[in-house]
């Protein structure tokens, strides 16, 4: 299935793009989807722990038990620094 993946700020620079379309296995779990994304964009974890990245599905912080579906909007970004 196709999903879109968005990157912002530091992760966009590291991924070399702000948006990508990728293919994932149907009904994959969110954690597994993140692993697949990080495998494709190794610079995202080159200088930081995976645990310091935040992951959203359809504009909400992801829940551990969530699955990813066709057409979903995924996003991977660092801890926020607005304000």
């Amino acid at each position: 299935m196709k999903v879109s993946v968005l990157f912002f700020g530091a992760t966009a620079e590291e991924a070399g793009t702000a948006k990508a379309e990728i293919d994932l296995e149907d009904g994959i779990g969110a954690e597994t989807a993140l692993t697949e994304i990080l495998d494709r964009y190794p610079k995202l974890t080159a200088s930081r722990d995976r645990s310091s990245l935040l992951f959203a599905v359809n504009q909400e912080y992801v829940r551990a038990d969530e699955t990813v579906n066709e057409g979903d909007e995924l996003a991977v970004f660092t801890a926020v620094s607005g304000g």
Partner: protein
Amino acid sequence: MGLMFFELTIDPLDVGEIARRVVPEECGATVTLDGYVRRFTRGRETEYLVYEAYKPMALKEMERLAAAAKDEFDISNVAIVHRLGKLRIGETSVVISVAAPHRRAAFEACEWLIKELKRTVPIWKKEVYADGEVWVEGE
């Protein structure tokens, strides 16, 4: 429910105009937090900042935070406005205005909202120095 509004804009923020927008007739006080660009961070001189947001998610998060604040504190109206793009030293990056019947709740809710905004709303800043730049990662 009261009035709540959330905005992301590249235009300069007018803190007074935002604060006045949340004034309801039955209320007695508005507390406004106005955050702006510092010249020095960790001893290094900043030339300017660039703010970027995951806009639809940031607006949803602001709305979620304001709804949570309304549940937790006795407040009437909330405005959360964050500026994006390039900001010079001293320019306002964020304004949070909370109107309440009693000022105690407005102080508490405003302080809670800025703390949570800095923790959960997907906005990032890049600090640009004379000799480089860095995307700041939150804590």
